């Protein structure tokens, strides 16, 4: 993955694991714990958006599926914790596969709408299917995260586990970017027709990366459920989908480091804005617009990895731009 990334990882890891010694307030640790999980979701989305050039507005649904599947199977049916997390990932991945296959062949905004529609359907199911999900008042009593006989009791203890997972996902994703598959995806994101002619199964990779992003969101969701031990549909609404996409855009599409920083920044931001709760929605919308209008390449472009600026430039649509759009 290159020397630069290894150095960044070292610094990043040192700071992350040193923080609990400095931060005494449990609330701060909790915010960072949620940030760690958001990073996992956001990394998946970055791979999807940066490589497949597709935006999903439904990742809250995958996050929520991971949470509810984990919650229901461990609490109501007594399944063991970690196998359930993996099972949830498999189920969520399969659903993503089913959605991805037809929609990823089409233009970007079809996936946007399909994932948004999916998000809303899942959200409504979470609310209405109350016999299983607990309905609008939520689902409580979820078993806490544990490894073997050791149950993670405090925010501080869970911090190490969640951040270890988060950093592991980051490392694995960095590995992916620098591998044969990563190269193929970078090629496909840049020039899809040339990539196809070079022998890359572009449709297949787009679906695969969509599934990967869904599976990561599911993992984060399961961990979230077993951390907070209580979940309710409100957490998994369309707004969360927007939030994670905003984190990716703020960080710079295709930059894993940027996305991680964007996730941390935008997880902390609402807490800071807590005083002005009513304005939360408006400010989010304004941030999204400002970043997209003035910094479409993201706020952290310099941190991008080996493959710098990646925007799809197919010969067939030189200029998916307002000024030159070709009419089909």
């Amino acid at each position, binding site marked *: 993955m290159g020397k630069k990334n290894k150095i960044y990882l070292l610094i990043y890891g040192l700071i992350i694991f040193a923080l609990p010694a400095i931060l005494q307030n449990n609330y701060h640790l909790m915010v960072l714990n949620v940030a760690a999980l958001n990073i996992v979701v956001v990394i998946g989305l970055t791979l999807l958006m940066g490589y497949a050039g597709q935006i999903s507005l439904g990742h809250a649904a995958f996050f929520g599926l991971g949470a509810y599947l984990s919650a229901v199977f461990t609490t109501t049916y007594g399944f063991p914790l970690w196998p359930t997390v993996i099972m949830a990932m498999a189920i969520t991945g399969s659903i993503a596969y089913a959605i991805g296959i037809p929609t990823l062949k089409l233009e970007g905004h079809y996936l946007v709408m399909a994932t948004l529609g999916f998000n809303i359907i899942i959200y409504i199911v979470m609310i209405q299917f109350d016999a299983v999900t607990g309905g609008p008042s939520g689902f409580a009593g979820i078993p806490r995260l544990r490894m073997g006989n050791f149950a993670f009791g405090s925010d501080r203890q869970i911090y190490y586990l969640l951040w270890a997972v988060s950093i592991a996902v980051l490392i694995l994703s960095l590995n992916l970017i620098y591998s*044969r598959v990563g190269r193929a995806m970078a090629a496909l994101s840049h020039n899809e027709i040339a990539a196809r002619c070079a022998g890359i199964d572009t449709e297949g990779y787009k679906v695969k990366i969509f599934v990967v992003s869904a599976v990561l969101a599911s993992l984060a969701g399961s961990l979230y459920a077993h951390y907070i031990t209580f979940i309710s549909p409100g957490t998994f609404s369309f707004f969360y989908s927007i939030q994670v996409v905003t984190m990716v855009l703020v960080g710079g599409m295709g930059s894993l480091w940027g996305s991680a920083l964007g996730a941390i920044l935008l997880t902390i931001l609402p807490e800071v804005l807590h005083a002005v709760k009513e304005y939360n929605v408006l400010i989010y919308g304004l941030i999204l617009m400002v970043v997209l209008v003035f910094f479409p390449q993201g706020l952290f472009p310099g941190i991008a990895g080996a493959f710098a600026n990646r925007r799809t430039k197919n010969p067939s649509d030189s200029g998916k731009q307002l000024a030159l759009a070709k009419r089909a």
Partner: protein
Amino acid sequence: MMRGAAFQGKQKILETRDLTLHFGGLEALNGLSFSIAPHQIVSVIGPNGAGKTTLLNAITGVYSAHSGDIFFQGTLISRLKPFQITALGINRTFQQAQLFSNMSVLQNVMVGMHPRTSAGFLGGVLHLPGERREEKKIRERAESLLDFFGLLPKADWLPGHLSIAEQKRLEISRAMASEPELLLLDELVAGLNIRETEALGDLIIRLKEKGQTLIVVEHNMHLVMGISDWLIVLHHGSKIGEGRPEDMQKDPKVVEAYLGT
């Protein structure tokens, strides 16, 4: 190696039968039938709009034919997707070099090896020993290809900083990375000066001498006459003649097609 006729019929590396392709109301290819024997340079020529690039797009699966078939080494490829056709052993260059400008010169060639390598998500994500070995081989082969094409000193450059001739060579080296039995070159020397054109012509002949089969779509008649073993002449989407370059030069139908436009 014998130029031209006698062994055309024997082993066919590529064959089209009655290939027809429409664009809206326009017939771009019209019942085109021909076949090509391996290890030679076949040039496809014809006036503008004759369907030459369309033919390349049809062979590589970028366009689907309305009717007719294409066979590659006996296998029917007309309904396959581009990446499948590449994996079978056909690769191409484009009229305007389609390089991945977000990657280095070396990485462009490494991508070209995709169909001949196999490390997947798991290997990539976990950086397994098998994947590491394959990456090393990919890098080495890419470097040796760049060396053959004279681009090794610029391996870490971005393609945008290369000259046009160098970009074309990069595109060929990327195409060669997939070890194609058949290489299609689309107007390789358009926009190049005489020196660059001759250099590329020599390169193509060197590739043929190593056993490569090439289909060259070209407008530059001097180059065509200089390197081709066989010519196929298209006009309005059909074949109006094929044969040795010197014969086609004198063929009245061919002459009329060029003068008539």
